[in-house]
């Protein structure tokens, strides 16, 4: 692999890395046909982010003859290469990313002003392809706004706030801080902002809904969107389905997939209230996933809960309930042999999502799984 980014694109690349560092501890780097994919997932696997930099983003883009090259590395080590954004802007003229097969190193070279050459040889690990399955087009609601609007809105929330609630009606959007159920309501402070549909570039609401998701990742993407001056699109459905934050332009695409809080927080009512029909995606070619061995994360396509969807919990589900989130690829691969077990993964419940292979997804479809299995519930039930 050999890619060269020049001028302002180096800063865009750096901003993308910084943005991804808000999601997870590791950067997954994979050159695909559509460009260079930079991905990250958080430890509870409830947030996934992907930047796809198209070949046109680069001055030179050569993918390896051996298509299977992909790697992951601590995001901190990549971040340190692009440590100072101001000095990047001031002095870096060219950035070259090369894969050195002999030394098993990923080499990032920064060509700076005055002939200064910075070469970073980063060690990496081989890994499976990291891919979330999601479909923006199937989402009932879509909002598109200038990043400035979102930045100004989010600014009102304290930095310590973890989750934000977004509600939509036919002509309005409300954003409010999410208050934990068990929080003392007399002491909690509520911040609510109402935005008119006119403030948005695009406003397509088909279902009036209210979702709660993590603010940290939204902030992460906003930093990127604001610096690149691109509008941000928000795709979402009912609570429990992931929200997709998206920034696109002609040479890059960024998608942040975040779990949303399920509607009902009461464990006893949970089973009835939150039956979600989760199924494996049959194919993943709808979103730049040309690798059939992808490790799927946060896999879910949700349908509206209807009366026909009688809650049923596959018996094997309980076996995997307490399976800890694992970053270990081998362990994830080991899970392939188990029956498919799609659990809604929400970090609000502290639950985990076992990875599943594409292979099993294709053979078994329409596997009904409870939406919000979690350790917490297990504890309550037992």
């Amino acid at each position: 692999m050999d890619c060269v980014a020049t001028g302002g694109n180096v800063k865009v690349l750096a901003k993308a890395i910084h943005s991804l560092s808000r999601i997870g501890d590791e950067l997954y780097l994979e050159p695909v046909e559509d460009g260079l994919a930079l991905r990250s997932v958080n430890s509870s696997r409830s947030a996934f982010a992907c930047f796809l930099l198209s070949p046109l983003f680069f001055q030179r883009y050569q993918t390896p003859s051996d298509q299977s090259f992909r790697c992951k590395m601590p995001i901190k080590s990549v971040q340190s290469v692009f440590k100072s954004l101001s000095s990047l802007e001031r002095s870096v003229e060219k950035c070259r990313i090369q894969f050195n097969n002999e030394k098993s190193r990923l080499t990032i070279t920064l060509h700076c002003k005055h002939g200064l050459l910075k070469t970073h040889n980063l060690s990496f690990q081989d890994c499976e392809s990291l891919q979330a399955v999601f479909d923006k087009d199937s989402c009932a609601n879509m909002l598109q706004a200038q990043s400035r609007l979102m930045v100004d809105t989010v600014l009102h929330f304290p930095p310590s706030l973890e989750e934000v609630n977004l509600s939509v009606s036919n002509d309005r959007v409300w954003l409010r801080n999410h208050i934990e159920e068990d929080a003392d309501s007399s002491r909690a402070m509520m911040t609510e902002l109402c935005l008119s549909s006119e403030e948005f570039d695009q406003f397509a609401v088909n279902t009036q809904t209210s979702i709660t998701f993590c603010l940290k990742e939204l902030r992460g993407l906003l930093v990127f969107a604001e610096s690149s001056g691109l509008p941000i699109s928000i795709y979402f459905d009912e609570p429990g389905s992931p929200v997709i934050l998206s920034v696109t332009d002609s040479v890059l695409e960024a998608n942040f997939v975040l779990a949303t809080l399920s509607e009902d927080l009461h464990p006893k009512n949970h089973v009835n209230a939150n039956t979600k029909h989760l199924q494996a995606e049959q194919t993943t070619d709808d979103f730049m996933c040309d690798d059939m061995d992808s490790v799927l994360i946060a896999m879910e396509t949700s349908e509206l809960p209807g009366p026909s969807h009688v809650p049923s919990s596959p018996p094997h589900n309980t076996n995997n309930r307490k399976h800890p989130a694992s970053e270990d690829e081998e362990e994830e691969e080991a899970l392939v042999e188990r029956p498919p077990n799609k659990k809604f993964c929400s970090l609000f419940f502290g639950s985990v999502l076992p990875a599943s292979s594409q292979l099993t997804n294709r053979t078994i479809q329409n596997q009904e799984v409870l939406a919000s299995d979690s350790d917490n519930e297990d504890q309550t039930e037992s």
Partner: protein
Amino acid sequence: MPLSTESQTDNDQYILIASLDNARNLSNILKAISLRDHAIFNATQNGLKVTVEDSKCLQANAFIQTDIFQEYTIKEDAVGFQVNLTVLLDCLNIFGGSTVPGVCTALKMCYNGYGHPLTLFLEEGGVVTVCKINTEEPEEPIDFDFCSTNVTNKVILQSDSLKEAFSELDMTSEVLQITMSPSHPYFRLSTFGNSGNAHYDYPKDSDMMELFQCTKTQTNRYKMSLLKPSTKALGLSCKVSVRTDVRGFLSLQYLVRNDDGQICFVEYYCCPDEEVEEE
């Protein structure tokens, strides 16, 4: 003004008197060498030399020549004493070290001879503070025997280009490796950290390179923990001279311009960490 009369009469007994209109001209340069508590002061007719050492492997010297001071009186050929540098810096900033233009602390530094404290008279806005710092038995500074005739490689760089590199250095690396060579890579700083290695290459024809005199390819490693404090000196300086001698000893000389545009020097000597086979 009882204080001034007292000072007048006392002036006779001091063997060293040094005055500055702006105490920051002294405190800034002392900060550049504040890597350990104990500083050896050595005053001669030429000025003041302050030495700080670390682990018998690193020596930092600050030179403040006579003409930096508004008054500089020395009654002996050489006056030596040792004080706690942290305490001295605290005293010099006793008025808060304001950086507002036009506001500065005036300093009169007096020493009475062996066994006496170092006395500082500090004045800002009509308020005078007198500080007495106990002096310690002066240690003999290590002679690094760094002789310019033994220098094999020398480069002079504008500090800005090195500042960036030093601010980004991978601190997980135990050593900083410096390569100087008449051929590629000319001048290279390398680190070997947890996440991999990094090289910073400065070509000899760079605008930042003011002088390039390398006769022999040399690669030496220096302890990162020892060299990191030199970043303070680098930050203050406008130019830096990097030299290595035949033994691989490193000399870093920083040219520091103070608030009044005068020039002082800070020098670091460092022993190489271990022998590296030349590639």
